[in-house]
């Protein structure tokens, strides 16, 4: 079943390349890129992010938080942090963890030692009672009534199609092979099969602890010298192997192909996002 799935997915996502499109396959990836001016050599964003600037814009959450804070006045404190004031190493728009040599040198593997984000929404020390919960839900309904919901569904599906293309990309597999060879000097005894699974247990033993349910949570400990050493080499090897570029290429090709198969829906989403964005601006202008 897995093999059948791989074949089906390969055929759908990887087999549809430039100038190979038939009428059934919609517009080719190359034609979609040309139509919208997408050039992956000049951006780190995949097509859904580059071509729809409003997609997953942190402004959405900001406007909703502003409405929540106003609505919950007198019920519970609700803290609003503007997007430009956020300090997380996780990209607010893409949701992806930043990782390069600079980050590795400072944090080791940042997911294990991430700097605390601003304490957003309800302060951490506040226990949300059923009464507060009810008020919060009522406020959420009001926010939805004013803003509607973001027209993200098709775009999320397109983005997901991009991510699913990564494991079956030969370019990514080549980059992973190079990364493996590059990582040998680190002597990591349990080096995982791919960079996205780093770091392994031998590196994280001090940085995360097993909880009662057998999962792992950050321990709060600072990164060890060994962790930083491996993380820095890892970041160098990813760069040398062209891993991030290969991942972006695989995602971009699959996303463009998916857009080409649903060009009308994609256009509709772009238009709907422009309308949605105006509502967000109104709220931010009023309450921000």
């Amino acid at each position, binding site marked *: 079943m897995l093999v059948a799935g791989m074949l089906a997915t390969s055929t759908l996502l990887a087999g549809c390349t430039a100038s190979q499109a038939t009428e059934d396959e919609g517009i080719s990836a190359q034609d979609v890129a040309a139509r919208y001016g997408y050039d992956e050599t000049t951006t780190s964003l995949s097509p859904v992010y580059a071509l729809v600037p409003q997609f997953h814009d942190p402004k959405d959450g900001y406007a909703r938080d502003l409405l929540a804070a106003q609505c919950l006045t007198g019920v519970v404190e609700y803290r609003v942090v503007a997007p430009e004031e956020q300090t997380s190493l996780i990209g607010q728009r893409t949701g992806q963890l930043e990782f390069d040599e600079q980050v590795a040198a400072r944090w080791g593997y940042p*997911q294990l030692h991430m700097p605390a984000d601003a304490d957003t929404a309800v302060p951490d020390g506040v226990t949300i009672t059923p009464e507060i919960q009810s008020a919060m839900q009522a406020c959420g309904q009001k926010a939805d009534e004013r803003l509607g919901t973001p027209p993200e569904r098709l775009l999320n599906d397109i983005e997901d199609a991009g991510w699913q293309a990564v494991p079956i990309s030969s370019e990514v597999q080549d980059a992973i092979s190079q990364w493996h060879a590059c990582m040998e000097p680190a002597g990591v005894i349990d080096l995982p099969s791919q960079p996205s699974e780093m770091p392994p247990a031998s590196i994280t033993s001090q940085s995360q602890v097993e909880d009662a349910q057998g*999962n792992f*949570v950050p321990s709060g400990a600072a990164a060890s010298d060994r962790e930083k050493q491996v993380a820095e080499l890892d970041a160098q090897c990813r760069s040398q192997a062209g891993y991030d570029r290969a991942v972006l290429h695989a995602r971009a090709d699959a996303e463009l192909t998916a857009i080409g198969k649903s060009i009308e829906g994609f256009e509709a989403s772009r238009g709907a996002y422009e309308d949605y964005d105006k509502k967000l601006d109104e709220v931010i202008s009023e309450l921000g």
Partner: protein
Amino acid sequence: MKLRLRAARLAVGFAAAAGLVMVGAGPASANYTDCSAGYACMWTSNNYPGSPNASYYTAIVLSSSSNLINSISNNGNSSIARFYDASNYTGAYITLNNPARGGQTRDPMLSNGTDATSSNWSNRISSANFA
């Protein structure tokens, strides 16, 4: 990140854009209230049965229940909870809002996707955090 039968899901995804697919919603009888205040919770079965199989206050990398999650709920204080396909907060992800933000705060059956995606998220989640 895992390889799955995506071709059919992609087709479903595009059908969803035309409003042909039902979106997730909380069922009338659910135990998502077993998720402690301040936490986001995950269950390996649909519809939040009993105590959560995984929960977190700031972030978590799943081990015992990795790639086994089928229903999720956000009962945290923060603005948004993110649930990732890959093990270190990378790759595809889905989100649940703080209730005061509106939108979706829990999902009883990830095989149907969520309100924001028609992609099948059954048995995919490997890590999660608050933002």
